[in-house]
């Protein structure tokens, strides 16, 4: 049972800046959601619970209650129940596989009455907490090997379940823990391998495996010539060469069999393989038009045409950044960038200063999650990344994501205070 910590008052040194950034982003989110639903003839009452903006007000209210509760409970409880929370969310996610409702091709929602709950959102914060706890406990040096396996498993299990729900976007979010691992000593060579793998993946998909194989072979021959006197390195090169070739074919195989046709099309679009402005990349094109037409100062609040006339899909959720870009222009998008930048840098800075490693692990974990959400979401709206449906934290419409991100942030604020 959570015990209220009577000595901890709300005013006692919680990081006010983070709370301010949070409130600002949530406010921007709400007015933007209102704008996307706004109809110019005046029939847009503020309270209409059939409308997303009124529902969002409900989510904001309950989130603030949730945040207050988190700030009032004993921070030990958060740490104590980390695994329990992780397992609970995992069970919910597995439950979704059987009783879940399908929305936009992803079976990741539990319908309760008129509301839908997306356990995946909560899984992110749960994983961050569990990961922090696990890393703190497994710190004894003689068990390092097992620690790495455990960390890997903590991530892999939810990723597998999410993939089973056909929610590739959320699965991608779990890669964010690489930032935490890097901070905590993941070898740079491993990261380099990841980057090489990413390059090979892109080349394979953008062109075809022949190009990748040619590239690998060229590099391999180069190294073989450079290392021709060092027998040991020649062995290593041959192994890397073979692994690379296997990797390329695996990517090709995964792409052909592991993705839905619409996902493949999106990937093709971003890689420039198809150019059909009225077909596959319609959404991306419209999204860019909406943001691009905003200019320096935007068209003015409630005056966006592209978002209001529904040229942009999912404009209150995944594509909400379009509405901001269109109505507030470059100026508005920079404000949002600054708020996110400040939030993320603040979390990183506070984490770095923390003496308690648990809090640092947790801080880096959630900073990574925010970073991935932010860059993937914005990147897809401006055409830097393929369209991957994940929300913009605190701004996108949706109860599950707002609650989960609120929990994520306020757990940190609470933990940081101790």
């Amino acid at each position: 049972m959570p015990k209220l910590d009577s000595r901890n008052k709300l005013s006692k040194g919680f990081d006010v800046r983070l709370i301010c950034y949070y409130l600002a982003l949530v406010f921007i989110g709400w007015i933007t959601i209102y704008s996307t639903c706004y109809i110019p003839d005046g029939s847009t009452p503020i309270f209409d619970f059939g409308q997303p903006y009124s529902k969002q007000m409900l989510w904001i209210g309950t989130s603030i209650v949730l945040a207050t509760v988190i700030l009032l409970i004993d921070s030990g409880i958060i740490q104590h129940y980390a695994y329990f929370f992780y397992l609970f969310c995992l069970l919910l996610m597995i439950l979704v596989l059987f009783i879940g409702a399908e929305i936009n091709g992803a079976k990741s929602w539990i319908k309760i009455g008129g509301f839908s709950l997306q356990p995946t959102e909560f899984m992110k914060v749960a994983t961050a907490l569990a990961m922090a706890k696990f890393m703190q406990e497994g710190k004894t040096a003689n068990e390092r090997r097992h620690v790495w396996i455990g960390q890997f498993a903590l991530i892999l299990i939810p990723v597998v379940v999410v993939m089973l729900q056909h929610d590739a976007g959320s699965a991608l979010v779990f890669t964010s823990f690489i930032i935490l691992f890097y901070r905590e000593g993941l070898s740079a060579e491993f990261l380099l391998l990841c980057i090489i793998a990413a390059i090979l993946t892109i080349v394979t998909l953008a062109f075809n495996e022949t190009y990748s194989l040619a590239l690998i072979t060229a590099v391999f021959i180069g190294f073989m010539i450079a290392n021709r006197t060092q027998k040991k390195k020649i062995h290593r090169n041959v192994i890397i060469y073979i692994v690379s070739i296997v990797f390329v074919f695996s990517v090709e195989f995964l792409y052909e069999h592991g993705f839905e046709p619409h996902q493949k099309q999106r990937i093709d679009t971003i890689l420039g393989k198809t150019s059909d402005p009225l077909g596959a990349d319609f959404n991306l094109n419209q999204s860019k038009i909406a943001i691009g037409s905003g200019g320096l100062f935007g068209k003015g609040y409630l005056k966006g045409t592209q978002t209001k006339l529904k040229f942009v899909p999912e404009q209150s959720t995944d594509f909400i950044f379009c509405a901001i870009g269109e109505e507030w222009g470059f100026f508005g998008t920079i404000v949002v960038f600054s708020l996110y930048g400040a939030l993320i840098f603040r979390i990183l800075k506070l984490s770095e200063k923390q003496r308690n490693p648990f809090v640092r692990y947790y801080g880096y974990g959630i900073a990574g999650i925010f970073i991935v959400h932010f860059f993937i979401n914005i990147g897809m709206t401006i055409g830097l990344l393929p369209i991957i449906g994940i929300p913009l934290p605190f701004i996108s419409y949706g109860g599950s994501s707002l609650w989960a991100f609120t929990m994520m942030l306020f757990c940190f604020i609470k933990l940081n205070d101790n």
Partner: protein
Amino acid sequence: MSQDNSNRYYIILITLGLLFAIYTVSLFKLQVLDKSYKRKANENAIREKTIHPARGFIYDRNDSLLVYNDAAYDLMLVPNELRPFDTMELCRVLGLEIEEVRKKIEKAAKYSGSVPSLFKQQISKEDYGYLQEKMSEFPGFFVQERTLRTYPQPIAAHILGYVSEVDEQDVENDSYYKMGDYIGKSGIEKAYEPILRGIKGKQKVLVDVHNREVGPFNNGDEDVMAVPGTSIWSTLDMQLQRYGEELMAGKRGAIVAIEPKTGEILCLVSSPNYDPNLLVGTARPKNYGKLVTDPEKPLFNRALQAAYPPGSTFKLANGLIALQDNIINTSSVYSCSGGGYHIGSHVVHCHNCGGLNIYSAIQRSCNTFFCRAYYNILSNRKKYKNIDEAYTAWLDYMSSMGFLKQYETDLPYELKGRIPSAEYFDKKYNNSWNGNTVVSMGIGQGEAAVTPLQMANMLAVIANKGYYIRPHVVRAIGHRDSLNTQFSNKIYSKIEPRHFETVLQGMKQVITAGTGRGAQIPGIELAGKTGTAQNPHGRDHSVFALIAPANDPQIVIFCLVENGGFGATVACPIASLMAEFYLNRKVERKDLETRMKELIIK
């Protein structure tokens, strides 16, 4: 271990900062540097619609509606907004072949990608309703409301003219027009196009992603209202026009009636004619093709564009000139005997009328009298040095009575008529010709050819005793009392007024005791002249000229029925019935009316 890796904190910060920088630059490029997205956004969401003004109505002189508008719906296409759609469904609804649809799209795309093009005009109300509901399935298409000309009476097609889609030439000449617009192509529709068409309006509407219009752009602040076209009151008397067309049914020819005091054309019948409703809407091309190839040439406006030998009605003009040139006076007598007028071995036949003065010469239409008078005009060496001068002076008189010219008012395509010049005869007869060479023109035969409109105008000169007002068909613009004064100046002939009294007296005798007795209307004194125009291609044309009432002319009527034979048999009763109808608003002589209506002359 954490201490070892604390420098990684900075690597993470720098990487993150770089990412933010890349994103900011991308956004700056997208939002600030690249202006194309603004344009694309407008193309996306704002549809500029042209509001076509209602075309002005056309009334007759008594406020009866001759032309008004009916609603029609055009399917428009913006090629840039086109996305794959159910082509078969569209073909089914519109009744088009798939190949046609493809061609139309290609043509529209060639014209402009972003400007709406006409895809199919005048779709039915049912198709309109159906398409309006399913518009979201046909992105790039939209329906535009338009108006179509409608004629409550199937009459006066030649004068009213027709409206059709602009051609490339029209668009080039006047930037007001865009492809798919309509323009008056003939008749009043053409002459008064700038007044009738009004001013187009512009409307910007917001269109959502499903191609549905959701409301005005910017509260409609940038919209421009259309100004409806101005209505026009024609000089035509709708009932008289209809009556004339009924009388001329089954015959070829023309009737022109003018109010002499004003030059207003009361009716202008050209037969055969056609229902103006045939040249409206989608049926137009098909019907137009039929009319063009019809051997009866219904599109041909005989009243203005056909030149006929005027026949004996021309004697009136020659009598006036003879009087003016003092060749004859009211007591001069010429004798008609020996079977006619003899020129060597050639004889212009007549009926041995005996001694005649000008009155009885008109009354009996004596060829001998007018040949002699005409010869004497041209042989008047006291006044004119030679034949050339005399003949040119005669042409001058003729032209002062309105022959040999186009009136250039609001009538479509008038013919000038043909009366050869002195040079023509100089050349033809090698400078050796005299009055007798061309004497047949003295009685309206030979080389002279004039239009029915010119003949009617000559009658107006006689009725007005010396002047005419150029014949025209539009009486008032904008309001029935806002009179069209641009053609109202009087044009005087070179004949003194007193000579008209003389000719009018002769014309009265034509009705009371002469060749035109068949024209008599109880209670109305008339003045008239029969004519029989020799026709080298077949039976003679029947011609009649009428002024009614003789002492206070309200209407002059010239009627010509091709191959009708003697003037007295067909043209005379038709002109008389027209006068009766116009002056009494009813016709008592029902037998005559029926006979004339049922008469068919091929």
